[in-house]
């Protein structure tokens, strides 16, 4: 019964959808169902700008399958219910690819609308495994790298390269992203413990907590200051936590996810030192790849400002890999494009390689640059790729 209703509903939906989709066969349409206002706008816009740069490059080079890419947009207002509407709206305008908000929670309603209509959806920079097959369906992808990879990368790198032995885990329970970083860390820790590392304590806080004094007191009551604190959090609470940790005189290494990348907030914690962030590309002009530095210049020309964090980059990667898949499939037909995407193994892009499989439309291993902030100045100090990919169990935790 339920199935029948759904089938009828889907049939009705696809009838009404099929018509506009057929009408504009002369161009390829990319639909952005992203936040143009509200809370998510600050996160969606930079990545979207990067995506636009890649689209303009493709159009300048003759387009995709010989057709120009046309862009249509609908504002999600940083609201989930609006997100679903935005998704339907760009689909009605004939979108062949539906680009959705950076964050899984905010992007999924639009992605689900695309999945329902059998179209490919791409999250701008979501780092949860659900932004893909597991949370949306077989036509959904994410252009970024899974959050657990970041936690695992930082733990292994700190142990192997910096000789950190005593680790402390401080989790902000606000978002799945935060929990994801710590999940990766948790998966890596037993391997490191076998080699002599130790988890000396753990605690949680909430992003909006006015003070984390009680959590800090717990760290300070340890017999010895830990070598490294794995801080699984994001803005804006991250700044507050970091500032309070340092103000309390705790000088341990602070290991982070990519969410705290950027120099825009460093003024809040003057002379911050011993602070490490994994990034897919450097916004500080010192990326080992000249192409990345060139991209930064182009971005600045287009938008008037340099990239504010590494989360600009996945937008570019997204259009890049999708366009390649379309070219290889010779059509924008969703299933054919998905099949091509799933054949990608270590596909080179400007910002590291990408692999998609029929099981995972996401990166469970990636090369990360490590940015160290020293006396308030961030700079790349090395790169690290985890020794083995984060397994499905740890990702799905």
């Amino acid at each position, binding site marked *: 019964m339920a199935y029948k209703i759904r089938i009828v509903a889907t049939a009705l939906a696809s009838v009404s959808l099929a018509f506009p989709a057929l009408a504009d066969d002369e161009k390829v349409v990319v639909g952005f169902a992203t936040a143009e206002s*509200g809370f998510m706008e600050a996160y969606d816009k930079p990545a979207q700008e990067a995506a636009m740069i890649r689209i303009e490059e493709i159009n300048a080079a003759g387009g995709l399958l010989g057709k120009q890419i046309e862009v249509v947009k609908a504002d999600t207002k940083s609201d989930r219910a609006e997100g679903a509407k935005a998704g339907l709206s760009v689909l009605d305008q004939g979108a062949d690819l539906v680009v959705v908000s950076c964050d899984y929670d905010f992007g999924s309603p639009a992605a689900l609308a695309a999945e329902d209509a059998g179209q490919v959806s791409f999250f701008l920079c979501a780092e949860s495994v659900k932004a893909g097959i597991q949370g949306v369906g077989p036509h959904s992808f994410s252009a970024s790298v899974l959050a657990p990879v970041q936690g695992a990368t930082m733990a292994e790198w700190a142990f192997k390269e910096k000789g950190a032995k005593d680790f402390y885990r401080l989790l902000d329970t606000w978002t799945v992203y935060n929990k994801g970083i710590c999940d990766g860390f948790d998966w890596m820790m037993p391997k490191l413990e076998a080699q002599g590392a130790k988890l000396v304590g753990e605690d949680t806080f909430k992003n909006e907590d006015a003070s984390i004094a009680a959590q800090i007191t717990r760290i300070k009551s340890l017999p010895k200051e830990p070598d490294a604190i794995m801080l699984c959090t994001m803005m804006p609470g991250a700044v507050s936590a970091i500032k309070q940790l340092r103000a309390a005189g705790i000088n341990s290494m602070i290991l982070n996810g990519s969410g705290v990348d950027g120099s825009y907030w460093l003024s809040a914690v003057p002379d911050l030192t011993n602070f490490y962030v994994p990034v897919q590309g450097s916004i500080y002009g010192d990326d080992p790849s000249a192409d990345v530095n060139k991209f930064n210049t182009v971005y600045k020309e287009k938008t008037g400002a340099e990239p504010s964090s590494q989360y600009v980059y996945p937008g570019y990667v997204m259009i890049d890999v999708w366009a390649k898949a379309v070219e290889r499939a010779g059509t924008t037909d969703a299933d054919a494009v998905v099949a091509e995407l799933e054949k990608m193994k270590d596909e080179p892009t400007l910002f590291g390689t990408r692999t998609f499989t029929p099981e995972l439309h996401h990166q469970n291993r990636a090369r990360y640059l490590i940015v160290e902030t020293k006396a308030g100045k961030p700079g790349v100090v090395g790169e690290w790729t985890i020794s083995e990919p984060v397994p499905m169990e740890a990702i799905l935790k």
Partner: protein
Amino acid sequence: MSAVSSAPETQLTGDVIAARKPARFTLARKTIVTPVLLSLLLIAITLITVMTGSRPFNQTVIDVLVRVIFVVGLYIFIGNSGVLSFGHIGFTCLGAYAAAWLTINPIMKSSALPGLPDWLLQTRLIYWQAAILAALFAGVAALIFGKVLMRLSGIAASIATFAVLAMINTIYSNWDSVTGGTSSVVGIPIIRTIWPYLIGAVAAIFIAWAHAISRSGLALRAARDEPTAAAASGVDIPKERLVAFVVSGAVMGLGGALMAHSIGVVTPDTFYLSLTFITLSMLVVGGMGSLSGGVIGVVLLSALIQALRWMEGGVSLGDATFALPKGIQEIALGVIMIVILALRPSGLMGNREITLTRSKRNM
């Protein structure tokens, strides 16, 4: 202000007593026009929507219908008891998650929500069955919380209901194995046809009406207007409040289930402060003392939001395109709400209901 001297009290006591006595049928016949008219309004909106055939617009109207359920649910408690509740969105949350537990594909469920009991993991219901169970679940939760809270009144009750919301939110945000924590729960079948939502909204309106003309509803409204007199004539205020709390909790749960089916994902923070305030605002702007006020508040404010959004998108006037800057919509909405409340402190409808003849107080 101290009590309005005692003459009205005696008069009202009379009302209360009369209300407890016969003539329910007459009362029903006299007042049924209101829910019928409100339903016709919603049906008309739905028919227009179906005729346009636009899917985003369809989704917008689904959203409006879900809001109608929420606001009518709020009205059942707040409107009849006069006690402001900040906690009802908590029951919406319970309803939405219950719907998720009951409708998600068992395979997905056992990997995403392994902490659920086995029988629940194996269950997969049709959405409308799930919605009814979700409403019952929310109603039972409201009964449990209400038992404790309905002794309180005034602002203490409001804060206590808020504490309930915050507790539900904290638990659902962190009980990872059962609720998926702060992450979205996905795999809820998405229902994009508008009819179930229309049925839900109309059902909510008739439930509200039936409660309002029931003995319990009449007694509660008498107690709202004249607590001392009502108590003196034997109205058990906490009990009548509890009845309203449970009924409204169940309606909120129904709304939550339908909302889950309309977007296909649920997260705890969807059901927190902003939804609480927007639904409360719609009720108060419409007029929290009347069912018509609630429904009209939703319809008008939604229309206003839509119009502002449309203007944000840009409107062509001759050759020039006129567009409001992004983000002005929320500011304008806030300003318009303040103006409406300043001009009509008891909301657009005040305490009146719409009827065929002329507006009538307090059905």
